C-alpha cells in the first residue's frame, strides 16, 4: 500500500481544514437535515424488519478489507467497519462475535463516491429558459429514478450525487441530492432543498431575454437580492431568494472566467452570501483572491485530456486553502469520470489525500450533508465502496458497493483484479 511522504506532509493542513469546515457547516446541518433524518431513518427501520431477505442489511454487519480511507483522506491499514441499522458504529477495533462478515482480500474501503455536479437520469433538459431568474425551479422534479444511468454510476462506485440545474439561467433553481441506490434497491432523492444554482456563464446571455450582458446580469442579481428585503416578489421566489440573500441558503455560482469569480466574491462580500464557485478556468489568476470569501470550489469535470490550467485548478485552490470538490459531469462523461478527474488532478500536483477527500467528504459538505455521508466514521451513514486498490488508482476496480449498510452491488467474480506495483 503506497502512503508516501507527500500525504503525511499534507495531513496537518487537512485536519485544520476539516475542523474549520465542520465549524462553518454547523448552520447547514440545522437547516438541511431535519428532512434528512426522516429520509435516512425511515428506510433504516424498514430494512431492520426485512432482515431475512438476502439483499437487505443484517442488523449488525461487518465489512473487512485490507485498508480504508480515513476522514483525512489517507489510506490506513486494517479496514474493518461495523455497521448497525445502516449506520457505521465502529471503525477498526475487534470484530464483534456472531456477525455477518463480508471480507475483501486486498480490498480498500472507501466512502461512497459523491458526484456533486451531474445531470444523472434526468428527463429532458435541466434548465427553464423562459426567464433568466428561476429560484423556484427544482432539479428534483426532473429526476427519473428508474434511469439506467443510475445503475452505471452505482457500479462505478457513485452512491450520492447532486442534480444541478444547468448554467443557462442567472438563477437556475434548487439543487437536488439523490442516491443511486437505497436499501430498498431503487434510487432515491435525499432532499430537493439543496443549494440555489446561479450562473454567469456565457450561456446565460441569450438574444431573446434579459440579460444580454454581464452588466445587466450582475445588475439584475443585485436588484433581486435587494428586492428580497423589499418583499416585492412572490412568496416562493422570496423564500428561496431570501434564504439565499440572508446567508441561510448556500448558492452555487457557475463562474467560468476569472472576472466572474471576482464578481462572485464581490457579491458574496457585499451581501454576506454563502457561495460555492463552479467550473472556474482561471484558477491560476484568482485562487489567491478567494481567501475565505467562498465556501468552496467545484472543479471539473476533468476529462482524460483536460487542459493543464483546468487540471491544476484543484491544486491551486487547495494551496490557497479553499475546499475543493471534484465534479464528474455525468452523464456526459463516462461513469468513472469522477475518479478520472481525481487522477488527472493528482498527476497535476494535487495531494492524494486531498484528492480522495475531493470525491467523498468535500462534496458532501458542499451539498450540506457533511455530517451524514462522505466519510467512514462512527455515526455516519454506511455508504461504502470496496475497491481492489487505491480508489485513486484507475487500475483498481469496484468490488462492491454498500448504501445504507446494504450491499447493493457486487462485481462479477470473473474479472481479474488489477495488481499494484
Amino acid at each position, binding site marked *: 500500500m503506497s502512503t508516501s511522504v507527500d500525504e503525511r506532509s499534507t495531513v496537518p493542513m487537512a485536519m485544520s481544514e476539516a475542523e474549520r469546515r465542520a465549524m462553518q457547516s454547523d448552520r447547514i446541518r440545522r437547516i438541511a437535515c431535519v428532512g434528512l433524518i426522516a429520509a435516512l431513518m425511515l428506510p433504516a427501520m424498514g430494512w431492520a424488519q426485512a432482515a431475512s431477505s438476502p439483499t437487505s442489511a443484517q442488523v449488525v454487519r461487518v465489512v473487512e478489507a485490507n485498508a480504508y480511507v480515513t476522514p483525512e483522506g489517507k489510506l490506513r491499514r486494517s479496514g474493518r467497519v461495523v455497521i448497525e441499522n445502516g449506520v457505521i458504529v465502529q471503525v477498526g477495533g475487534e470484530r464483534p462475535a456472531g456477525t455477518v462478515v463480508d471480507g475483501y482480500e486486498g480490498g480498500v474501503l472507501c466512502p461512497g463516491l459523491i458526484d456533486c455536479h451531474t445531470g444523472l437520469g434526468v428527463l429532458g433538459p435541466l434548465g427553464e429558459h423562459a426567464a433568466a431568474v428561476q429560484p423556484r425551479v427544482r432539479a428534483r422534479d426532473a429526476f427519473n429514478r428508474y434511469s439506467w444511468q443510475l445503475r452505471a454510476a452505482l457500479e462505478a462506485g457513485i452512491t450520492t450525487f447532486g442534480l444541478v440545474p444547468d448554467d443557462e439561467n442567472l438563477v437556475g433553481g434548487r439543487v437536488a441530492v439523490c442516491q443511486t441506490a437505497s436499501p430498498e434497491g431503487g434510487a432515491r432523492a435525499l432532499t430537493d432543498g439543496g443549494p440555489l444554482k446561479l450562473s454567469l456563464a456565457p450561456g446565460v446571455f441569450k438574444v431573446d431575454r434579459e440579460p444580454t450582458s454581464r452588466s445587466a446580469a450582475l445588475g439584475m442579481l443585485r436588484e433581486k437580492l435587494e428586492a428580497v428585503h423589499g418583499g416585492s416578489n412572490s412568496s416562493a421566489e422570496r423564500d428561496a431568494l431570501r434564504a439565499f440573500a440572508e446567508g441561510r441558503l448556500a448558492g452555487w455560482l457557475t463562474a467560468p472566467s476569472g472576472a466572474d469569480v471576482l464578481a462572485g466574491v464581490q457579491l458574496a462580500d457585499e451581501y454576506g452570501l454563502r457561495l460555492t464557485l463552479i467550473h472556474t478556468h*482561471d484558477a*491560476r*489568476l484568482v485562487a489567491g483572491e478567494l481567501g475565505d470569501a467562498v465556501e468552496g470550489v467545484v472543479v471539473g469535470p476533468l476529462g482524460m485530456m483536460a*487542459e*493543464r*490550467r483546468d487540471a491544476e485548478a484543484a491544486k491551486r485552490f487547495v494551496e490557497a486553502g479553499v475546499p475543493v470538490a471534484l465534479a464528474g459531469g455525468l452523464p456526459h462523461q463516462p461513469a468513472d469520470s469522477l475518479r478520472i478527474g481525481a487522477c488527472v488532478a493528482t498527476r497535476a500536483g494535487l495531494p492524494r489525500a486531498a484528492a480522495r477527500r475531493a470525491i467523498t467528504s468535500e462534496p458532501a459538505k458542499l451539498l450540506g450533508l457533511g455530517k451524514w455521508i462522505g466519510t467512514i466514521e462512527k455515526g455516519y451513514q454506511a455508504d461504502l465502496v470496496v475497491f481492489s486498490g487505491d480508489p485513486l488508482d484507475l487500475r483498481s476496480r469496484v468490488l462492491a458497493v454498500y448504501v445504507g449498510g446494504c450491499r447493493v452491488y457486487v462485481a462479477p467474480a470473473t474479472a481479474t483484479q488489477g495488481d499494484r506495483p
Partner: protein
Amino acid sequence: MTGCSKYGSAMGLMVAVVLAVADGMAGPPPERVALTGGRIIPVNSAPIAKGTVLIERGKIKSVGPAVEIPYDARVFDVSGKVIFPGIINVHTWRGLDRANEARPVTPQLDVYDAIDPSQLFFEDCLRLGVTAVHVMPGNDTVIGGLGQVVRPIGLTVPAMTIAPGEHLKLSTTPRRGFDHMVQMATLRERFLELGDYAERLAERRYEEKLKEDGKELDVGPAEARKRGRSLIRAEDVDDEHRNLLRLCGGRVRVAGKEGASLFKPLGVFVHCNRAMDVGPAVELAKRNGFFDRTILVLGGECTKAVGELKRAARPVVLPQRLMYRETDLHTGEVRETFVPTAIFEAGLMFALVPGPDDSYAERMPTYQAALCVRHGVPRDVALRAITLTPARMLGLEKRLGSIEPEKDANLVVFSGDPLDFNSVVERVFIDGIPAYERAKDVRLQRLLTSGPGEGEGGSKE
C-alpha cells in the same frame, strides 16, 4: 480591403495629381539638377552636414560638401532640409487590382499586366518618400507569378518600369482552403511534373530534329531524351513551365551546354507565415536549386525559427506588424517579441515594409525604421533596411538604395531627420525628375487644411 479600393474612385482629383506628376514626365529628365545646402544622408557612408547633390541626366553626378554647380543646372535650395535616398518597398501586392489569382498554381502570370498606374497607392508612395516599389503577387497562393520593380510615376507600366520582373512568388504557408499537407504536396508535385515535362520536351525535340533532317527515328524514348536535351530552345518551353524552369535555373533537367543557361535564372520570394514554414521553404529551395536566389518573406512567428534562418542565412523581408504577440496556452499571458531585434541579433539581412494602411504611423517606412531604433536596432541598419538592403535583394544595388555617383537620382527631401516623426516629405526626385512637391499636393492640402472644410472628403470618397 481598406485604403486602395477606397481611394479607387476619386477620378476628379486623380486627374489633377496625375497631371501634376505628368508635367515632370512630359519631357526627358532635365539635363542637370542640383540640390544644395541640405544635410545629406547617403546611407552607405557618413552623413554630410551641409552638401550638394548634382544630378545629370537622371543619374547622380556628384555628392559632397563642395560640389561646384554648372551654370545651366536647375538648382533647388534645400538648406535646413535632409536629403535621403529614395525609399524602396521591397514586397507588396498593392498596385494590383487583386492580390491573387483564384487558382493555386500560376507561374505563368506577370504583374506587368495588372499594375494600374492610376492607383492612388502610387501617389501615396510619393508622399511617404517611396521611389521604387516591387509589386508582387499576394501571399494567398502556392506558386504566384512574376513581380516587377516600378517607380511610382508614369502613365503606363513601361514608363514606370525600373527593372523587369526577376522574382517569382511562392508560398509554403497554406493558401486559403489548403492545409500544410496539400500545400506542400502541390509544390512537390509541381516540381516533379516539371522534371517529367523537361524529359518529354527533350524527346519531342529530338524527334522533330530527325524529321527536319529527313532521318528516321532510330532510338527509343529513353535514349531520345538524353540526346534531345541539348536541342531544347527557349521558344519550345511553354508558358506555364517557362518561369519554373527559369526558377530552377541551376538544375533544369535540360542539362546540356546551353541547357541550364537557356534563360536568365529567376529569384524567388517565398512566403512563410509561421515558423514551421521556414524549414520546408529552405528545403524546397535547396532541392530544386534556387536556394541562393531565395528571399524569405516572414510572418511574426518566424522569430521562433531564428535558428533555422541563421543556418540558411538568406535575406528576409519582415512582416508589416513588427511586434509579434502570442498567448501562452497555459497561463493566458501574452508573450511579445519584436521581430527586427531578433532577426538583427541573428545577423540576418532584413528589409522593412510599410505597415498596414489603417495605421497612420506604421504605413510610413521611416516610422517602421524608427520603431526598430526604439527597440535597439542600430540606426544605420534600420535606415538601410528601407533603402540599400531592399536594393540588394532586388539585385539593383548598382542603381538604387543610396546616394552616390552613378546611381539613379532617386532622392527624397525630408523637412527634418527621417526618423523624426514630425518631419515630412517635402520633395521627391525620381531619376532627376521633380516627381513630388508637398506644396503642390492638392489632396494632402485638402486633408490638412484647417477651418470648416467644405466639400471635403475628396481623399476618402
